[in-house]
């Protein structure tokens, strides 16, 4: 008995070390799924507020560039309005389909670029109707998917996170593949599962497929930078992402009103 006490007294720190490491690693594994703990939500609010103030100062440095982007967007939207007006909106089926999406503008308050698992924090949360699994796009292409929201802030899983997967297709010939990130450069992603009998060439446009019910169909993702044959039947394609994650200040969050319905039908079919 005395020896056990002696052991405990002299080696308790080894036990404590093992305990704390197990605790840390269990946090790690839970994080790889979805984080749900109140702790994370509380901290998103604190960290979000802090980052928001800092970001406010940093934004001044990029005013000129942002102005240019806004001007471009204005032009594009004006064109779009006139296009729709020409089409008699009430009777046009494509217009009704697009109408089932709601856009919310949000500001990026924090983002990382050079980690393996990058995240973006935006300043809109549950109060503004932001929920998990909503799509996030920028002016120049898709950005990511909402991972979790608290009252005023949300965490976005961007394309440049190794957990990211999205079904996309080639604009030219409709072959569908999966886009993911290999953790190398924040400017490029990898497109898999395009069969080798598909004809592709550098510069081909890649857009969202709409299969996931998260992203509307036909959103710009990026262009083919280079590709190579690999073993098996698929290409390995390197995609230059449309979105520049370094100068991302404003994003649009898209809520899909039909998402629930699409999920229900899909799960009924699986049964």
């Amino acid at each position: 008995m005395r020896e056990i006490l002696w052991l405990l007294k002299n080696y308790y720190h080894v036990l404590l070390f093992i305990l704390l490491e197990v605790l840390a690693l269990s946090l790690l594994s839970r994080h790889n799924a979805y984080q749900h703990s109140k702790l994370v939500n509380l901290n998103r609010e604190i960290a979000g507020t802090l980052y928001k103030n800092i970001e406010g100062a940093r934004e001044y440095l990029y005013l000129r560039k942002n102005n240019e982007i806004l001007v471009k967007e204005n032009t594009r939207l004006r064109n779009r309005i006139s296009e729709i007006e020409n089409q008699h909106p009430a009777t046009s089926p494509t217009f009704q389909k697009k109408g089932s999406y709601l856009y919310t503008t949000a500001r990026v308050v924090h983002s990382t670029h050079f980690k393996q698992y990058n995240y973006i924090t935006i300043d809109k949360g549950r109060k503004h109707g932001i929920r998990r699994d909503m799509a996030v796009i920028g002016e120049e292409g898709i950005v990511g998917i909402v991972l979790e929201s608290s009252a005023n802030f949300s965490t976005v899983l961007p394309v440049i996170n190794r957990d990211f997967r999205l079904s996309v297709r080639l604009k030219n010939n409709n072959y569908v593949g999966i886009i993911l990130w290999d953790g190398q450069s924040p400017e490029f992603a990898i497109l898999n599962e395009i069969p080798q009998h598909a004809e592709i060439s550098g510069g081909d446009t890649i857009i969202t497929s709409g299969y996931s019910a998260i992203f509307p169909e036909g959103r710009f993702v990026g262009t083919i930078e280079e590709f190579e044959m690999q073993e098996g039947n698929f290409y390995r394609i390197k995609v230059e992402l449309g979105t520049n994650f370094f100068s991302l200040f404003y994003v649009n969050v898209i809520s899909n009103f039909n998402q629930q319905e699409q999920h229900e039908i899909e799960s009924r079919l699986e049964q």
Partner: protein
Amino acid sequence: MIRIATRNIVRFFILVLFQVLVMDNIQLGGYLNPYFYILFILLLPFETPRWVLLVGGFMLGLSIDLFTNTLGMHTAATVLIAFIRPWILKTFAPRDGYEPETFPRIYYYGFNWFAIYTLILTFIHHMALFYIEVFNFQDFLSTFLRVVLSTVLTSATIILSQYFIFRK
């Protein structure tokens, strides 16, 4: 005693804020990330009980993790160096041991001693951190390059800080 405790607690908060607001924005080409915050573990007094070291390391890593959305990663790495620190100190102790009322700093034990102490602990921390982050050994070399370069950068900032901020 209380003065030393307060000083360390204040340092804890300053280092966490400094890390998430300043250091996390310094990333050169994806290879260099300085993790300056481990200075907290390095500067704790020699007599710090082991459980304080471990719990302190846990809290420190967790605070960083909460800000960077990496729950568990920094925590695991920081607890590891908190656990190893006593052995490193023992291995590199001067012949007469550490004198009372001194701290692990350049001011008391010189540049060489502090540089070795910093380099070893930083290297262990970064090894753990970067390999947990990628979670495979496929890109062993490219990850190792990141570990080595970041170790140099972190150690350099820590050693420089000894001349400018934490002089005594």
